[in-house]
């Protein structure tokens, strides 16, 4: 694509030798100047509609445009450089990248929008329409009308209409303004609302029409906000679910209070980091390092869990309080060990492209990709746990040992092995939670400490020993937290939730999904 344009450009330059004082050549040297000069030059180039400007501006936006010590510009092409003023290959000795600031970036977005709005590439046209929408210049009206006349893709058309409306709104033509107000009113986005609020101040005569449009937007936004709050709550809930699931197994099933649970989560996050580093050298593997990290984190944390259970915890069965204190000590050691090995600094775990950015759900509800995936992951892990407990031999043996250790032993089940496996399983789940947390939180030795109390609360609230309780508990706490947050602030919301759980437990000491009857008494 670029090559094609550059080729066209070359032809163009050859065909029209030395058209001395056109807009392009006048504006071009400004790009190498200071930030304000560069921003002005970018705007001129955008308005020039000169096809030669496109590759230069694009190179600039992508941070590839070079300038020589003498102030001449160089566009990289293939292995060499081209002088954009002449289109001829040129030498770029000592050149450095042209630096940008936000003002220049803003100008670039508008200018590229103007230049690319008739691009043959649909993606570019969409981005261009958005760029033009944000640059809000009345001068773009003819350009947009022309582009709209040719556009067939509905999504791009809509964006172009909005851009047109935004441009008309700051124009002088009253009729255009009126249609723009109506069009923006149906858009239902915060950007449209911002435009209308500003227009209301500039056009007091149209206040009534604008108010109607604003009210329509408000209504859409209110529904969307509720949906987004729900999503945020579910997202927080899924994080809590992941952190608590492992605990639901080790505490709920085995009755072992593992204060080092948070550290297993942290180990999982570091495993993710290590897998990512290992994959770095292999380009085709790199984007898949995160999925690969899931089994790795599971195995690492499970191994650590098995060692902990066989080495220490099994000597303390029947003494849950001692186990609690002992595992606190283990947590201290694990944290410091990780700090010694990896350093106290945060480790960078990058998100793969498919986990970045925002995703639009139907109805214009914007959700972030990484959180969406974490919700999916949380549910997948839950299903995995349920399946492992219900449908595998290991799950059967585990349930047998939980219900009656002695009888299970007489039936030939190696209870010690089952204990170790169960604990390893719970720890491994914690490790998988670490993979998810590496995408939203710091990968640091302290990662786990922030989640341990919340996880306990989820398990206790949901009902010890009940996976359904853990699920409902986690999601309830997440949603309640997020619903309260705008009113009470993040801290008080959390405090309220904690107090509410404490009161709830007074009423139902065994949690939401309590086991009833004689089994629960013992």
């Amino acid at each position, binding site marked *: 694509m670029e090559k094609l344009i550059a080729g066209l450009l070359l032809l163009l330059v050859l065909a029209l030798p030395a058209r001395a004082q056109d807009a392009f050549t006048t504006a071009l040297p400004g790009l190498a100047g200071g930030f304000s000069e560069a921003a002005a030059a970018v705007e001129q180039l955008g308005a020039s509609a000169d096809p030669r400007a496109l590759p230069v501006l694009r190179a600039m936006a992508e941070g590839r445009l070079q300038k020589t010590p003498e102030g001449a510009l160089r566009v990289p092409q293939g292995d060499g450089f081209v002088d954009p003023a002449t289109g001829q290959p040129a030498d770029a000795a000592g050149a450095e990248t042209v630096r940008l600031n936000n003002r220049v970036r803003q100008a670039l977005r508008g200018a590229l929008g103007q230049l690319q709005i008739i691009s043959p590439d649909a993606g570019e046209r969409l981005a261009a329409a958005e760029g033009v929408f944000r640059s809000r210049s009345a001068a773009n009206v003819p350009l947009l009308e022309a582009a709209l006349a040719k556009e067939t893709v509905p999504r791009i058309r809509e964006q172009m209409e909005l851009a047109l409306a935004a441009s008309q709104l700051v124009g002088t033509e009253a009729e255009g303004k009126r249609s723009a107000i109506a069009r923006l009113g149906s858009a239902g986005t915060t950007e449209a609302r911002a435009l209308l609020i500003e227009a209301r101040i500039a056009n007091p005569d149209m206040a009534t029409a604008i108010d109607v449009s604003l009210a329509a937007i408000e209504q859409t936004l209110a529904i969307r906000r509720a949906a987004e709050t729900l999503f945020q709550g579910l997202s927080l809930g899924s994080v809590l679910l992941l952190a608590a699931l492992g605990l639901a197994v080790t505490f709920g099933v085995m009755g072992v*209070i593992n*204060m080092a649970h948070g550290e297993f989560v942290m180990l999982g996050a570091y495993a993710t980091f290590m897998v990512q580093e290992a994959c770095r050298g292999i380009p085709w593997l790199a984007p898949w390092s995160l999925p690969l990290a899931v089994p790795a984190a599971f195995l690492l944390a499970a191994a650590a869990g098995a060692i902990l259970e066989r080495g*220490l915890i099994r*000597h*303390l069965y*029947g*003494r*849950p*309080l*001692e*186990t*609690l*204190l*002992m595992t*606190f*000590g*283990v*947590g*201290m*050691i694990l*944290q*410091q*060990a990780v700090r*010694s090995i990896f350093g106290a600094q945060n480790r960078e775990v990058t998100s793969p492209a498919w986990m970045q950015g925002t995703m639009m759900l139907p109805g214009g509800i914007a959700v972030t990709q990484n959180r969406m995936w974490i919700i999916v992951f949380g549910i997948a892990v839950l299903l995995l746990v349920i399946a492992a407990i219900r449908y595998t031999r290991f799950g059967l043996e585990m349930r047998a040992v939980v219900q009656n250790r002695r009888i299970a032993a007489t039936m030939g089940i190696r209870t010690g092995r089952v204990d170790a496996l169960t604990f390893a399983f719970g720890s491994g789940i914690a490790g998988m939670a670490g993979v998810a947390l590496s995408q939203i939180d710091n990968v640091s030795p302290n990662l786990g*400490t922030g989640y341990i*109390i919340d996880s*306990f*609360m989820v398990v*206790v609230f949901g009902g010890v020993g009940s996976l359904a309780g853990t699920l409902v508990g986690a999601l309830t706490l997440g949603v309640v937290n997020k619903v309260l947050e705008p009113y009470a*602030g993040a*801290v*008080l919301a*959390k*405090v309220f939730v*904690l*107090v509410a*759980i*404490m*009161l709830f*437990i*007074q*009423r139902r*000491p065994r949690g939401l999904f309590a086991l009833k009857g004689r089994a629960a008494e013992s």
Partner: protein
Amino acid sequence: MSASLAAPAPAGAGRMTLRLVLIGAMLVLAMLPVLNRLPPDSALHVSDFIVSITGKWITYAILALAIDLAWGYAGILSLGHGAFFALGGYAIGMHLMRLIGPRGVYGHPTLPDFMVFLGYRELPWYWLGFEHFPFAILMAMAVPGLLAGVVGYLAFRSRITGVYLSIITQAMTYALMLAFFRNDMGFGGNNGFTDFKELLGMPLNTPSARSTLFYASLLLLLGSLWVCGRVTRSKLGRVLVAIRDAESRTRFLGYDVTQHKLFVFVLSAMIAGLAGALYVPQVGIINPGEFSPGNSIEAVIWVAVGGRGTLVGALLGAFSVNALKTWLTTVAPDLWLFALGGLFVAVTLFLPRGLIGLFQKERR
């Protein structure tokens, strides 16, 4: 519930030796500020640092005693005793802040600096009365006592025991920590209270203030020992042990377990609050970090290390773990967590009765 690890009462002769050791240790402690006054080149001179740090450890020992009373005797493993300690500290901290008066940075006659700064016009109602020392001391006991009363009543009435109670109390201190971190609470947020000037008319940060506080702590330690001893040796003490080992059986004997547990929990919280009140003027700062769940667990571990179910064990644990920590954070700043964590693991695994168990075995 947990299997009973009933610590047997040391045999008569053992108990006697233990008591002698305890009296000896107390005498040595009592001598420290006196030795501090000796000329620095004297062989017996004790540095200011030792006096101040020992004073701090004594308050920790009182906290350990309070935990031991609840855990070692009544089986209530509270992971929130740090909160009672911190509340007591905040009570006295408020008094100390009020005493700064117009000597604060902004020279406001009544408002502490942080309030001036956050734009308070007048003192919030819950700060009233703290200018009086007796009131502050009363609050240092009453507030933790009241909190323990409410939380304890709700929990014990619902028969929340064992690890559930531990988790609830942990959540309690965590919630308090979050709340106190908020600047809008009117307790100085993360910075808490510092830069105290005087207490009872004596300027802090002088050797004489330090030795006064030291003796006050020692006195409180002895007083707490006496109170705890009085409780544990009475029939109430035996009821508590009964509750610890077989709670429901105690109920069938007609004892209202909720009342007994509540009594000891509140008493323990009040002792912890007083310890906090003596801790704060000695370290010169109180902030929400004191509420952090880790602090409470650490204090419980002192008791476990020393040996729960014996009052001396609690003291031994508090002194030895803290001495070790002070030493290790200087000698091995990068490795001390390994050592301390390893100690906790080793003690729970190999010394279920704590260090005191070692002595008891030797004597048998």
